[in-house]
């Protein structure tokens, strides 16, 4: 099996609104696949259709080479962390995971063992006997992540898994997801692109229900020669017009959101050569420079691709 998921011409209409507009996508087996797109791009609809929660209007879907989502075929093999979904308040943490595990085809004992393993992975083992309503927002999020890894799923959809987590838990979850590379296919959507960049090996950009671009992360980040100049938070904004005038061979952009000045060179020349000329000119404009990073980042590429 080469692809865990193949989608062709997927359309989902809500009345007159097209949430998905002829989406085509292929997701390689064993990859950690990042989905990037603005709100309303169709990421959640795409994941919901692939896990059988939402019915597509038209289009072809092949999940794990066993056709479109079918509960008899894919139950236990495909899991999802749905966005904005609550858990029943009066159930105990361990009991809910055991219930989900049993529905996924595990025996009672296997489900208990799997629920303990999943809770341990998200650092909630000591809360296994607690009622769900007693958990904090971050703990709830971790519990919903745990349910997606119950048993032995082959294709896992995680819709905004990092939202609401503290930095320590973000780190733990990132490492946890990374540990499944090559063993399971994981599709992750997130607005925190720097996070996705740290553990994804493939990325797709979506816009208004269509695929704009899909490629291995390495390919996306190594286009041309890109240098990123990280300005200090207290630095004044650079004079981009003046810099562009002086260095017409390069494309220069300033992203105020992360205070980075991006220089892209499509022609010849090494990073050292460019820095030798560019950094003094940059400092002359009065900015304070913290560091220089080689290569593009996901955010830059996404902003570039989405116009």
């Amino acid at each position, binding site marked *: 099996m080469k692809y865990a998921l193949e989608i062709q011409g997927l359309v989902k209409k809500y009345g007159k609104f097209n949430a998905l507009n002829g989406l085509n996508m292929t997701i390689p087996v064993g990859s950690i696949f990042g989905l990037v797109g603005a709100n309303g791009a169709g990421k959640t609809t795409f994941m*919901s259709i692939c*896990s*059988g*929660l*939402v*019915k597509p209007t038209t289009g072809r879907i092949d999940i794990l080479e066993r056709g479109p*989502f079918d*509960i*008899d075929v894919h*139950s*236990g093999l*495909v*899991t*999802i962390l*749905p966005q*904005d*979904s*609550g*858990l*029943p308040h*009066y*159930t105990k943490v361990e*009991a809910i995971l055991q*219930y*989900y595990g*049993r*529905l*996924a*085809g595990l025996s009672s004992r296997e489900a208990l063992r799997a629920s303990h393993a999943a809770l341990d992975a998200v650092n909630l083992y000591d809360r296994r006997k607690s*009622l769900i309503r007693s958990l904090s927002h971050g703990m709830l999020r971790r519990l*919903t992540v745990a*349910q997606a890894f119950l048993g032995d799923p082959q294709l896992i959809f995680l819709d905004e898994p990092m939202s609401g987590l503290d930095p320590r838990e973000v780190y733990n979850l990132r490492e946890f997801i990374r540990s499944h590379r090559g063993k399971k296919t994981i599709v992750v959507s997130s607005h925190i692109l720097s996070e996705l960049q740290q553990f994804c090996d493939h990325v797709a950009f979506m816009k208004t229900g269509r695929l704009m671009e899909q490629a291995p992360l390495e390919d996306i980040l190594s286009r041309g020669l890109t240098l990123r100049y990280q300005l200090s938070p207290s630095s004044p904004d650079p004079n981009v017009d003046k810099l562009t005038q002086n260095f017409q061979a390069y494309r220069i952009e300033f992203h105020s959101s992360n205070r980075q000045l991006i220089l892209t060179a499509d022609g010849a020349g090494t990073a050292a050569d460019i820095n030798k000329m560019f950094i003094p000119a940059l400092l002359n404009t009065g900015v304070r420079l913290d560091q220089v990073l080689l290569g593009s980042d996901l955010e830059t590429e996404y902003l570039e691709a989405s116009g």
Partner: protein
Amino acid sequence: MKRFFSHIWITAIHEFKDSIRSRWAISLMLIYLAICMFMSYQFTGFLADAEVELIKTMGVSEGAKTGAVTSRLWDIGIAKNTMMRTYKGDEKLVEHLMQAHPVVLVFAWFTVILGAMLTLLMSSPRVADELGTRSARFVLYRSDQLSWCLGKYWGQAIVLLPVFLISAFGVWCISAFRLEGFERLKMLSYLLEYGLMSYLYVLAWLGLATCVSQLTKSQFLAVAFAIGGAFIFAIIEGFHEHLRERGTDHPNWRQLVDVLYQFTPMSYRGHLWGPELSRQIIAGLMLIGLGHLFLVIGYFATYRRDI
């Protein structure tokens, strides 16, 4: 098929435990038990007073203890006439009911009404709530909606069984304490038998509750729909009674109402209380079948809906 039934069982057990933990269900059950006890306390008080009056006015056996002459109350004909009117044409049933102690009959009468209300209030929010909070999304990619709803139905059915048996026992305790001539062992078996019949009767109402619960994502709207459904059944029963007593010049109307009446739980109540075991068994099966019919109607009305 094996998976289908296994999911019903797994969900039923989970639903049972979840309902017990839920304060809403426990509160309603306690209110129901309290009302049953209060009603039987009041009724046994009324019965004792009526007997004292009977002794005084009719000069019946002055030495008799309270409860020993209850049958005389039946002999005055008011109760018999009421039953003859209600179950016109079913002499056997009326004779059978006339042999039962009034405490048993009153218990049977108010448990079917109160039990149906308890069931509608307790069970109609169960599916709607999970659809509204979207916790159903964690289940419905592992299990199909029909087996999930059937599991919910049987989970609630398991919750209700002890409620009816405990209420029968409670009524027996009060009657045994308040009525001196009460035949304790015989009455206990009668009350438990009628408690069980009331339980079978509410299984049809439970189907109505599960049906309407699938139609909405608001638990309050689900309760409103359930009460609306009960109101429609009451209107059909009213029409049916009216046409049976007064007749009509339009036989088609009569046929239509007769057919509709067959789809209400009330049409099987008399058979359930009848003297023949075969009729009781058939009525019980019809009520369970009716419950499942309502549930499946709810399922077919919503199964194409996105979760």
